[in-house]
């Protein structure tokens, strides 16, 4: 995958297939050396320990399981390439937390890509899921919660074109605010 936005698009399909109706995407810059941390938390059906071991192994999974394939191994590869790692915690019946860490100054760290567009598409295609988006860095914080937006929308669909465009622009502003001067690709 060329950038983080494509990984997010891909990995979230796992949460959706797992039946999640609450998905929390958090992207943080923290620590020394500064790491970019992507955390995806869902309330889907979760995985047992044996299954978690399998999902990071592309050979085992692609042969024995239909629903989980190369998405997680590819994300793990991107993280490891940039001096980071992937961590999955899950409990059957409760949900899954996936965390991928990247050293932001590593030469092989993939760029963010078009995250506002990815999130717009995810919301558009899955309007009934409660999405929360959280961005943070030493600079600033940003949060977007679709339940709160729906409350303000008062019956107007969140999939309305103008609403989706507003969401996309708002997240783009958030990324500039939070990561401007922190990540090379954001200025």
């Amino acid at each position, binding site marked *: *995958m060329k950038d983080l936005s494509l990984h997010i*698009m891909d990995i979230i399909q796992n949460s959706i297939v797992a039946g999640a109706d609450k998905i929390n995407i958090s992207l943080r810059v923290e620590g020394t050396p500064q790491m970019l941390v992507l955390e995806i938390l869902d309330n889907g059906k979760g995985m047992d320990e044996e299954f978690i071991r399998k999902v990071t192994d592309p050979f085992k999974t692609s042969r024995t399981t239909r629903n989980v394939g190369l998405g997680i191994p*590819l994300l793990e590869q991107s993280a490891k390439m940039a001096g980071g790692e992937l961590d999955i915690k899950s409990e059957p019946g409760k949900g899954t937390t996936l965390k991928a860490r990247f050293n932001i100054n590593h030469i092989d760290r993939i760029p963010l890509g078009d995250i506002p567009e990815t999130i717009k598409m995810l919301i558009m*295609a*899955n309007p009934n899921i409660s999405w929360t988006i959280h961005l943070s860095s030493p600079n600033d914080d940003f949060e977007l919660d679709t339940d709160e*937006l729906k409350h303000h929308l008062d019956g*107007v669909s969140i999939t*309305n*074109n103008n609403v989706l465009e507003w969401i996309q622009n708002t997240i783009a502003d958030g990324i500039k605010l939070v990561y401007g001067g922190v990540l090379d690709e954001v200025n």
Partner: protein
Amino acid sequence: MKSIEELKAIRDKTLKEMSIRDNEDKVRIVVGMATCGIAAGAKPVMSAFIDELNKRNINNVSVSMTGCIGICRLEPVAEVFDSSGEKTTYVKLDAEKARRIVAEHIVNQKVVTEFTVGAAER
């Protein structure tokens, strides 16, 4: 920062317009958005569908995503479900082809035969 006030203005404007529009989704476009699709470029395809529909002010077509359809070698793949329930599977798409599908299939109701799975597998 875009404010909630802006969002409320969008809501009020939409509520006014809603009464004069038929808001029922009649046609569905479903884009394959699994690892295989994304790696092959499904995101710009979906983006082009959305953009072209918006440009033409078409409101009764929904765009959504699905997992692996099972023909990874032909990705990016999209399925168009007409109001009658008829399904057309388009394969090896790019943004330009997506725009043509909106113009020819959605607007003029004429299947773009050359992009279909049938044509690709011949």
